[in-house]
């Protein structure tokens, strides 16, 4: 069973009086596996939100189709098992956080003490317990994002679809969201989220898909996309070692730059690092810092995006 499958999914918007056609999504084929965290990556306007809206039936596709839990998305009932957080959350301002969650729970047919307990758990999960009786119109963007996430989980969904869940959150809030997503996976859920914040993807995703101008340009496990030797270089700053050692290092392939009493050595692989650290210790030198350089998704992203543009 695939939690989410799309085949040839295409959406054209018609703009203005002359109905100029804009292809927002171009024949997307994608499968999301059970129990994984799938990162859906793309620059602004790549078509991430369009894809998500198509999958949830907010938009009708121009062509192609999609399935949720092996059922066509046109079946309203499949949404019973889906949780969704829209891009910038818009909710009923006149409801309090608690009423809001209760309302959405009722739409799923929940009620009574089950629902009350669920609302309680979720308010706890997104650390919004204190604000439970505050109407949403008085919430900050980050608070709205949190109740938005709680709302997406009210039905204990099998598939959770989040459109830019970290946007508008401070670093702590982003860490909280990452934790929530990881916890969902631990509970056996499938999470599909869109973002353009790459470190978040690198940290938690099992697989990613990269969307460039409405086309899927790459999809695969995060490690594969980054490359198996993900560390490309290491910067090492040392002080108090003799010049002789530095020339040795240079001869072995490192580049060295002197800055006052310190030397910045750029090494190309891990073996050299061990050797250099031994040398520094032997000569009573001091290691100031050691910074690995990874080939990040960012590099890849720029590469993919550039590749299509040219």
């Amino acid at each position, binding site marked *: 069973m695939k939690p989410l499958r799309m085949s040839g999914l295409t959406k054209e*918007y018609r703009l203005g009086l002359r109905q100029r056609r804009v292809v927002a999504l171009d024949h997307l084929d994608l499968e999301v596996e059970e129990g994984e965290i799938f990162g859906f990556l793309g620059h602004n306007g790549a078509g991430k939100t369009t894809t998500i*809206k198509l999958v*949830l*039936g*907010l*938009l*009708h596709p121009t062509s192609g189709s999609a399935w949720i839990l092996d059922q066509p998305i046109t079946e*309203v*009932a*499949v*949404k*019973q098992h*889906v949780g*969704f957080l*829209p891009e910038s959350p*818009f*909710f*009923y301002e*006149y*409801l309090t956080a608690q009423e809001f969650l209760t*309302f*959405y729970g*009722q*739409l*799923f*047919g929940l009620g009574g003490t089950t629902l009350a307990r669920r609302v309680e758990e979720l308010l706890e999960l997104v650390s919004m317990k204190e604000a439970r009786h505050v109407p949403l119109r008085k919430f900050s963007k980050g608070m709205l994002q949190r109740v938005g996430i709680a*709302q997406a989980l009210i039905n204990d969904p099998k598939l959770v679809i989040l459109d830019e869940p970290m946007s508008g959150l401070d670093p702590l809030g982003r860490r909280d969201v990452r934790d929530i997503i990881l916890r969902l996976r631990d509970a056996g859920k499938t999470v599909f989220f869109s973002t353009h914040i790459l470190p978040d993807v690198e940290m938690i995703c099992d697989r990613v898909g990269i969307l460039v101008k409405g086309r899927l340009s790459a999809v695969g496990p995060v490690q594969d996309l980054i490359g198996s030797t993900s560390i490309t270089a290491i910067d090492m700053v040392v002080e108090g070692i003799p010049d002789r050692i530095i020339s040795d290092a240079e001869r072995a392939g490192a580049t060295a730059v002197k800055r006052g009493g310190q030397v910045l050595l750029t090494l190309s692989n891990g073996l050299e690092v061990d050797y250099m650290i031994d040398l520094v210790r032997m000569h009573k030198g001091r290691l100031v810092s050691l910074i690995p350089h990874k080939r990040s998704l960012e590099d890849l992203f720029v590469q993919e995006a550039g590749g299509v543009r040219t």
Partner: protein
Amino acid sequence: MKRMAVIAFNTFKENLRDKILYNLLFFGLLLIGSALLLGTLTMGEQQKIIKDIGLASINVIGLLVAVFVGIGLVSKELEKRTIFTIVSKPVPRYEFLLGRYAGLAFTLFVNVAIMTAGFFGTLLVSQALPDAGLLTAIGLMFMELLLIVAVAIMFSTFTTPTLSATFTLAIYVIGHCTADLHALGEKLHGGLSKWLINGLYYVLPNLACFNVKGAAAYGSPIEMRYVLTSLTYGAVYTAAVILVACMIFQRRDFR
């Protein structure tokens, strides 16, 4: 069915927290009460004036609530995109629309009921008795409001709040003079304009049939058959409008 009730209840709750509603209601009661004052200024026909003003106030305030609160309920939802989270739940779109409609109809009912109570209170103060004729007039007025709300909701499924309000008010006004429209159509001799005018006459609601305010204020009898025919006409027309609204709503994209 249960989901529809949840949405309807939520709609009612939303209305209760809407300041416009209270302002309109307060203003309506003020108007009705002021009839007492006006009544004392004119000699003789005091009770008829109170009845005229009372019925007219209920009508106008009801219309304003129907149009402005009604349009807010659907098109504001589209504009503010709260609809995204509803449509992504296992709620068929027509259920959402019907739930909204039911909630609003209930709001209107409560609203009209409160104003009617104020009206009858005013009558009692001026030593007149409320009668069945007045209640019949208010009942038909309520049917008209139900129809207008359906029209307002239908427009809001595809255009902006401002345009919806304009169209709905236009339909209200033209709907009250469909007889003139018919007469005009008779006068024209063929051609596109005659065809168009006749088309409008048949498509637009004949709202004049819900208006028995004059007879009620005078205390002249209102035929039961007339009332039933009007109610049936109103119900069928309203159902048709809601059906069209659901069809438009089902097809549209939520961008």
